[in-house]
């Protein structure tokens, strides 16, 4: 079990009479890039919220970084990073101030903060924007900064919720290069996306339909078992069977 970053069995979340996530089983290995795919409304965000401790599951079990989501949420929180779908830095603060703030939130001390600040700014290449308010930065830069900040505390796992939404192809490419670097450094990356080409970059992907995980394998494994030439085809053939509407 110890080489698993995330393991879930029968994880379920019910809102009223609506089962958003319906008994999903999931294993994510340490250090891998795991693509978490699904149409809009398939239950991805709800599943992710359960794994990050934002929502408590209705039933089932899950361990993140070896800790139970019911009883050890606080320990999990120290070991995960999270980048939400919405852009979540403060627009009216500079990159440095954002780093300082989130670093503080994740419990870094002054010396660590100082080191991290310079390290992050140069790793993202933000020297020129150092003293500008984040609101005036191009979206691609903001996303890179948000990603860098989500791993400021060297987490074991980082959750990325559609990190490249609305970003141009060149920046997306750069973003994925960063994801590879991060994965190489030993951090497990759990990423949702709507871009099927990005799914091909992942070590393994799962595809969610109507709250269930209908397929989980490596991209090449999926393609051969569905007899498809791309992940996009696999996705479309699965999503077509969905009963829930878009949204």
């Amino acid at each position: 079990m110890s080489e698993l970053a995330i393991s879930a069995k029968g994880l379920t979340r019910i809102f009223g009479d609506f089962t958003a996530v319906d008994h999903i089983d999931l294993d994510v290995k340490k250090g891998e890039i795991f693509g978490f795919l699904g149409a809009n409304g398939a239950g991805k965000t709800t599943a992710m919220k359960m794994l990050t401790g934002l929502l408590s599951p209705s039933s089932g079990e899950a361990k993140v970084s070896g800790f139970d989501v019911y009883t050890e949420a606080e320990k999990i929180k120290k070991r995960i990073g999270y980048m939400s779908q919405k852009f979540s830095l403060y627009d009216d603060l500079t990159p440095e101030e954002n780093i300082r703030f989130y670093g503080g939130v994740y419990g870094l001390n002054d010396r660590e903060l100082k080191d991290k600040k310079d390290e992050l700014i140069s790793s993202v290449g933000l020297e020129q924007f150092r003293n500008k308010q984040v609101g005036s930065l191009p979206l691609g830069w903001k996303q890179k900064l948000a990603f860098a900040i989500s791993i400021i505390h060297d987490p074991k796992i980082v959750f990325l919720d559609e990190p490249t939404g609305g970003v141009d192809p060149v920046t997306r490419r750069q973003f994925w290069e960063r994801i590879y670097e991060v994965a190489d450094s030993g951090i497990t990356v759990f990423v949702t996306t709507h871009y099927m080409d990005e799914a091909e970059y992942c070590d393994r992907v799962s595809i969610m339909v109507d709250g269930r995980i209908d397929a989980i394998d490596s991209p090449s494994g999926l393609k051969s078992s569905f007899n498809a030439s791309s992940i996009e085809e696999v996705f479309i053939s699965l999503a077509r069977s969905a009963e829930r509407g878009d949204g």
Partner: protein
Amino acid sequence: MNAFMGFVVKEFKQIYRDTRTLVVLFGMPIIMLTLFGFAIRNEVSNAKIGVLDLSKDEVTRELIQKLSVSKAFELNAYLDNYDQIEEVFKQGEIKEVVVFENNFANKLVKEGKADVQVITDATDPNLANIVQSYTGAIIRDYVQEINDNGVAVKAGIQPSVQMMYNPELKSVNLFVPGLIAVILMLISALMTSISITREKEMGNMEILLVSPLKPHYIIIGKVIPYLLLSVVNVITILVLAKFIFNVPFNGSYGFFFFESILFIVTALALGVFISSVAQNQQTAMMASLAGLLLPTVLLSGFIFPVESMPLPLQVVSNIIPAKWFLIIVRSIMLKGSGLLFLWKETLILAFIALAFIALSLKKFKVRLQ
């Protein structure tokens, strides 16, 4: 601790960079105090009045003289007969006509009484009331005077009225404590609820909730800057009140700040509560304005005395924190009262504060489920 300081520093920077917030925070108290201080006054000065003197003797002349030198009145018309009264009222300038009956002085001496009729234009009932009571006071003063001089026969019982704590009946003395309550509500509750919902709307809150930071640190971190700013505002209002409007301050400053902070904490808890229910900034703003500011203005006794409200509203006013705060602050500022006299109100305020803190903490946690 680092996280906590980071929070406070961040919050101050954001406030400092947002001109709109700055204007609301620092412009509002000054504008409101000036407006309320200068424009809204219950006392009347230079109200135009007319006289219908059917007697024209030395007593009526003296009375008319007394009326016309009063700062409250400006004697504007001498009428000749009753028909003219309605005419001048219709013209609208004259607010009151004082009528002295025939043979006024004679009757006063012989029968020991003479009639003065006071007719007011009650289209503005407040004004009519005030003007009428001023006139009554001036006439009573005069009667007192002639009684003392033994000119007339002593007239029965003479009430001796003394207005304590605010002898000049200055309304600004009454408004300043109310304004402190309104402004504190505005800044503490409205601004906090807006700034927390903004974090929700922008998605920052999600990140903070995923972080190891404990929820109550998030709340305290958000709230501390507004607590400090509110205290600064209390000081601003006090300074303005003292040096521009000469409002007295008879009590202890320490006790006053203690009570103010108690009220600020209540308001902050309300702000946090609203932000945990409201999904966006507009809702938070509407909820704060309609749900907090209006009751604070209307039901606390700030403008309308609680005693003159219908019973159901009087009952409702008991859960309005501003009502208790107003009683406390008015007593401290004007009467110089201390905890010895105000412990009951303080206790009630503290209880309301605790109740709202508990409620908002609970609500805030529920969101994490």
